[in-house]
C-alpha cells in the first residue's frame, strides 16, 4: 500500500515537474509547479513530516506559487510557440539529456545507500515540539538571521515597487 502510494506520488511529482519545464504557457507551468508541490507534500506525509508537508502547502503552494501566478497573469506574457525555449542545437540538447541520464544513473548505481531500518530510527519529524525546541535552542541564531532576511526582502520589495514621490527634497 505505502509502496504504491510512494510510486504514485513520485510519478505524479515528476510528471508535474516535467510539466513545469516543457509547458509553453507560463500559467500552465505555474499550475504544474503547484501540483508538483502538492505531490512533494504528499511524499513528506509519507516521510512522517506532517508539519513540513503542511508548511510546504502553506508557504509554497499558498503564497509563493500564488505570487507566481499573479505575476504571470499580470504581465500577461505569451510565449510564442516557437520561442519558448532557448535556441539550443540538437547537439546541445542531446548532450544535456545524456548528462541527465548519466547523472541519474550514476546516482542510481553508485550512490546507493543502505536504507537504515526506518522503524529503528525514531520518526523524528512527527512531534511538533521537536521542531520548536530545535528552532529556539540550537538554531536560534539562524532564526534571528532569517528574521533579518525577511526584513530586508520586504524592504527591498518596497523599494523596488513603490512609487516614490517627493524624493527631491531629501538629499
Amino acid at each position: 500500500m505505502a509502496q504504491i502510494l510512494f510510486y504514485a506520488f513520485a510519478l505524479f511529482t515528476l510528471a508535474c515537474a516535467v510539466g513545469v519545464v516543457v509547458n509553453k504557457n507560463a500559467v500552465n507551468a505555474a499550475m504544474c509547479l503547484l501540483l508538483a508541490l502538492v505531490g512533494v507534500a504528499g511524499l513528506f506525509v509519507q516521510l512522517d513530516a506532517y508539519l513540513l508537508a503542511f508548511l510546504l502547502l502553506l508557504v509554497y503552494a499558498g503564497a509563493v506559487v500564488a505570487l507566481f501566478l499573479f505575476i504571470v497573469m499580470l504581465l500577461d506574457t505569451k510565449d510564442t510557440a516557437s520561442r519558448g525555449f532557448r535556441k539550443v542545437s540538437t547537439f546541445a540538447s542531446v548532450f544535456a539529456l545524456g548528462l541527465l541520464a548519466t547523472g541519474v544513473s550514476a546516482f542510481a548505481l553508485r550512490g546507493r545507500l543502505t536504507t537504515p531500518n526506518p522503524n529503528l530510527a525514531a520518526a523524528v519529524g512527527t512531534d511538533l515540539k521537536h521542531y520548536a525546541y530545535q528552532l529556539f535552542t540550537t538554531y536560534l541564531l539562524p532564526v534571528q538571521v532569517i528574521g533579518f532576511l525577511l526584513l530586508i526582502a520586504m524592504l527591498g520589495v518596497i523599494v523596488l515597487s513603490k512609487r516614490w514621490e517627493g524624493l527631491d527634497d531629501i538629499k
Partner: protein
Amino acid sequence: MNLEVVKLAAADNQWGAIFPELMLACLALALLGLEIVLPKKLHVYIPDFALSGLVGTLAGLLFNFRPATLGHDTFNGLLHHSEPGQVMRAFFLLVAILVCVLARVSLAKQKMPRIEFYHLVLIVTGAMMLLAQSNHFVMLFVALETVTIGFYILVSYFRTSTASLEAGLKYLVMGALSSGMLLFGIALLYGVAGNPDLPAHTASAMNFNALAQFLAANPHHFLASTGIVLVLAGVAFKIGAFPFQIWVPDVYQGAPTPVTAFLAVGSKAAGFAVLLILARDVFASYAWLVMPVLTAMAAATIVFGNLAALTQHNVKRLIGLSGVSHAGFLLLGVVASATVPMAQGAIYFYLFAYLIASFAVFGVMTHVAGANDSDQDLDHYAGLAKESPFLAAVLAIGLGSLAGIPPLAGFMGKLFIFISAFQGGARWLLALAAAGVVISIYYYFGWIKAAFFEQWTPPADTADPRPARTPVSFVSGLTLGSLALASVLLGFYQGPLGQWLTMK
C-alpha cells in the same frame, strides 16, 4: 524532551560572542526607526549616523580583538570564532564603511530612497560576518542567503535604470541557481554523514567538525563527492570563479557603483572565507577531489578574466572582469593552502590589498560617474589628471595596486600568493598567473592612460559627452586619500599585520 536539556541548549547561545553583528543589526533597525521618528529635514544625517556606528563597531572590534570566545564554538557549534574570523569581521566592517562613503556620493545623483540602502548594507555586512565564522551548514546557508538576497536588492537598487534591474535579474537567476546547487550538495552531505550504516556516522551531520571526521573515515564515497562538488559550485558562484563567472560583467556594470564595489570586495571575500574553511578543514580528506577541481577552476578563471577584460571599454565591466582574474589569483592561494600554511595568511593579505585598491578605484569611479550609473566609459576619464589631479592620483595608485605593481600593497599580496603557490607545487598555474599579470597590466594601464595621457579637446559641435564630475567632499577626499596612502604604506611596511600573516 527534558526541560533542563532545553535550558542548557538555550544557555549555549552566547550572544556576547556576536556583539559586532548585533551592533550592526541594532544599527540597521535604528536607521529605520530614525527615519520614522526624525523630521524630514534631519534625514540627511542618518547616513552619517550609520557611518559613525560602523566606525564605532570597527573600533570596538579592534579594541577587543581577542575576546574570550576566540577559539571556541558558540551557539551550539553553529559558529566558530577564530582569528581569521576576527580578521574577516574587521574586513567586512571596513568594506561596509567604505561602501557607505561611496554611497553618499553615488546616491546623491539618483532619485532613490536613501536610508534603505544603508540598512541593507548593514544587514548584509552582519550576515557576511556570520558567514565567515559559520561552522555549520545551516548557519552557512542562512547567512549566505541573507547576503545574496541583500545583494539582489542592492544590485537592482537603481530601479529607474534598466541596466540596474537587468543586472539584478541576472544576479538573481544565477544566484538562485548556485544556491540550489549548494543546497543539494548540503543535503547529500547531510544524508551521507548521518547514515547509521556508515562508519563514523554522526548525529550532527551538518556541523563542520563532525562532517570532517566523517569524511575522513569515508574517503571515497560517491554521494559525498557529489555533495562536495555541488557545494563548491555554490561557493564558486560567490567568488565568480570560471564556469560561474558569466554573471560578473553584466551585474558589475548594471549595479550601482557602491554595490559593485561591495560585490567585488565584500561578496568575494566572504566567498573566499567560506571556501578556505571548507576546502582546508572540512573537505580536507577529499583533497584528491577538491584540489584538482579548484586548480582547474583557478586556471580557467585567470585566463578568462584577463582575456575578457582586455577588450572592455566600460570601466565597470573592466573592473568586474579584472575582479574575476583576482578571484583566480586567490583561488591559486586556496589551492596552495592545502599544503602550505602560509597561504591562508597570503589570501587574507591579498584580500586586504584588494579591498584598499578596489575601493580607491571605485571611489574615483563614483566621482567620475554621471547620473547614468551603468554608463561609465574609459573615455570619460580623458583629461582627469589635468582637471582633478587628486582623483587621478588615487586612481593610478589603486589601479597600480590592482595590477600588482610594487611598491603598492597589491604587489605584496600577489607575491605572497605566488610564493605559497610555488611552495604548494602549483608551477604551471603559477606560470599562468604570471602571464595573467602581464596581460592585466595592459588593461589597467589602458585605464591610467585614459586618465593621464589623453589630451582632452572638447568637441566643438556637440556637448561634452563626459558626465559632470562630482566635486570631492571632505569625507570622501579623506577616505580616498587614506586608501591611496594605505595602498602605498602597506606595500612598504606590513608591520603587525604581516607578522600575523606570516606566523600562520
